[in-house]
């Protein structure tokens, strides 16, 4: 008994010593009170040099945390345990967070650099007047493929994925909206379609794709495609950029029937404490020179018109990642379909996955 008490006492004292030590460490690094800003971002989605530069210029200390899905991020913000001052969700998540009052309005007078953003990316349906969100990056959904392994297929049409030559040779990314959306697009329907007949038709068409599908995977798709494990894959343009960085033989194309256009925007979650600092950060990221450097590092498409001019012609003139007006007109943004429809999309996706070869 005595021994037990002693052990408990020891653990107790040790815990307090550790808490004190952590506090001391934080203070010596400058993490105290109002001069910190907590950024909650996707992994590997900012040039780390820029964080240092922001710290120097603003005198704020940046605490950087990452998430791997919009849903995980929203859950964490909803629980409210941690104070996040900045987050970077995708458009449908912004709409949802807005509905659930998880966002704070952005004071446009504090972000003068907003003027550099291309008009095309402002005032979009998911956040009219950009009341709650400022564009960070954008992109498309398309096909990344190895020209030597696909014969004469060009993927100018989604139907090329159904070609017999690709038997057991394509990867799909593990997303219900993306895969069902591709099915709808290939039939000429909108990827926000909620008509049950159209959805069943899309499922029917997708089930005939099964023999070609080697696997439906998550983030590993980048590693697998760069390693040439399959000839073609359905991916986000950002992932495609990374894959092509690793393996230059690969190509990316957005099929002409249309596809998804997505946005990742900076927002200030309702958990924010350093709201001034958050505005400073947003304004800093919109600076043309900073945005250009960030684009070079991340490889996604920037909505910043002034930054695009600073970039190399090789990047800014790349039609694969900056598609022309004609194609852009056929791209659609995901609308928030509501929880019931989203659930239905997922059930359809589950059914598609259940098809055996």
């Amino acid at each position: 008994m005595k021994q037990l008490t002693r052990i408990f006492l020891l653990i107790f004292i040790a815990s307090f010593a550790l808490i004190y030590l952590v506090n001391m460490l934080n203070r010596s690094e400058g993490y105290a009170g109002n001069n910190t800003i907590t950024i909650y971002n996707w992994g590997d989605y900012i040039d780390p040099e820029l964080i240092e530069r922001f710290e120097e210029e603003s005198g704020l200390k940046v605490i950087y945390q990452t998430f791997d899905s919009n849903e995980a991020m929203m859950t964490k913000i909803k629980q409210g345990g941690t104070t996040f001052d900045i987050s970077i969700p995708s458009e449908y998540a912004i709409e949802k967070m807005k509905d659930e009052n998880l966002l704070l309005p952005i004071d446009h007078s504090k972000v003068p650099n907003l003027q550099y953003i291309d008009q095309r990316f402002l005032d979009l349906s998911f956040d009219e007047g950009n009341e709650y969100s400022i564009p960070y990056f954008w992109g498309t959904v398309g096909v990344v493929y190895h020209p030597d392994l696909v014969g004469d297929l060009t993927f100018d049409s989604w139907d090329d994925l159904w070609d017999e030559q690709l038997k057991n040779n394509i990867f799909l990314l593990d997303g219900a909206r993306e895969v069902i959306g591709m099915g709808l697009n290939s039939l000429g329907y909108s990827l926000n379609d909620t008509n049950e007949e159209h959805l069943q038709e899309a499922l029917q068409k997708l089930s005939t794709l099964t023999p070609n599908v080697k696997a439906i995977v998550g983030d590993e798709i980048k590693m697998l495609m760069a390693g040439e494990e399959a000839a073609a894959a359905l991916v986000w343009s950002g992932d495609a950029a990374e894959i092509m960085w690793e393996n230059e033989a690969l190509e990316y194309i957005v099929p002409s029937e249309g596809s998804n256009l997505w946005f990742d925007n900076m927002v200030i979650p309702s958990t924010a404490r350093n709201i001034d600092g958050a505005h400073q950060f947003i304004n800093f990221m919109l600076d043309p020179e900073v945005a250009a450097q960030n684009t070079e590092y991340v490889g996604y498409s920037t909505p910043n018109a002034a930054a695009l001019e600073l970039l190399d012609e090789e990047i800014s003139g790349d039609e694969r990642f900056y598609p022309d007006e004609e194609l852009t007109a056929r791209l659609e943004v995901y609308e928030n379909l509501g929880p019931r429809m989203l659930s239905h999309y997922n059930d359809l996706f589950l059914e598609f996955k259940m098809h055996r070869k």
Partner: protein
Amino acid sequence: MEARTRTIYLIPYFMWLVLFVVAPILLIVYYSFFNVEGQFTFANYEKFFTPVYMKMTLSSFWYALLITFFSLAVAYPTAYLLTKTKHKALWLLLIILPSWINLLLKAYAFIGIFGTYGIVNALFEVVGIGNQQILFTDFSFVFVSVYIFIPFMILPIYNALEKMNPSLIYAARDLGASSWVTFRKVIFPLTLDGVKAGCIAVFIPALSLFMLTRLIAGNRVITLGTAIEQHFLVTEDWGMGATIAVFLIIIMALVMGLLGLRKRGLDLVKR
């Protein structure tokens, strides 16, 4: 006096039980009666009996059975040989060692090993079998799962074998039983509890595997675990996720009941 102190000592255990075992199960059952919009409904249970979910349940069962069967087939001889070796502690450590490494790391390693340009395929090329697709097949899924679960099968069987009184084997031999008859009539029945404990330790987690189904099987194998993960993380349809979890709990209880482990065998799992 003594009885009272004993009850006091029991309090932390009961608190633990209520907070971390009973309460979560009740919460799961509670959530299973609500739809996405937060209304009370039985629809989740109806949905579970549609062909999609029934097929998923059957395929989960089938793969869990396969995994358990192959684990047992490998683990029993291994455990048996283990009791015959000189440095038991060392061999046992070597078997347990891989379970110290994170599951995800092991899965990623297998992606490399089984890939089109991986070691196994390189070997196949040399031998003349030629390049085969190994990754994203049923084979790779069962193989990697067995690899991961095998220590949980070996340990209880090993314990049961160790606990067995060797004089019983000598007696069987004295009375003229061949080694096969000794094994069938004496050794195996006496280690049956270990086998049951091992099967439960493998079958139940195998039923709700989810990371491996994507990393190793490329979502070509869909288990109930995958569906739960999707409903909680992607659709936020916690009700449906909880309903599947309720059925998993029921299935597990049935399996344990069938194997008759409630009374005696369970302490073998802990050992």
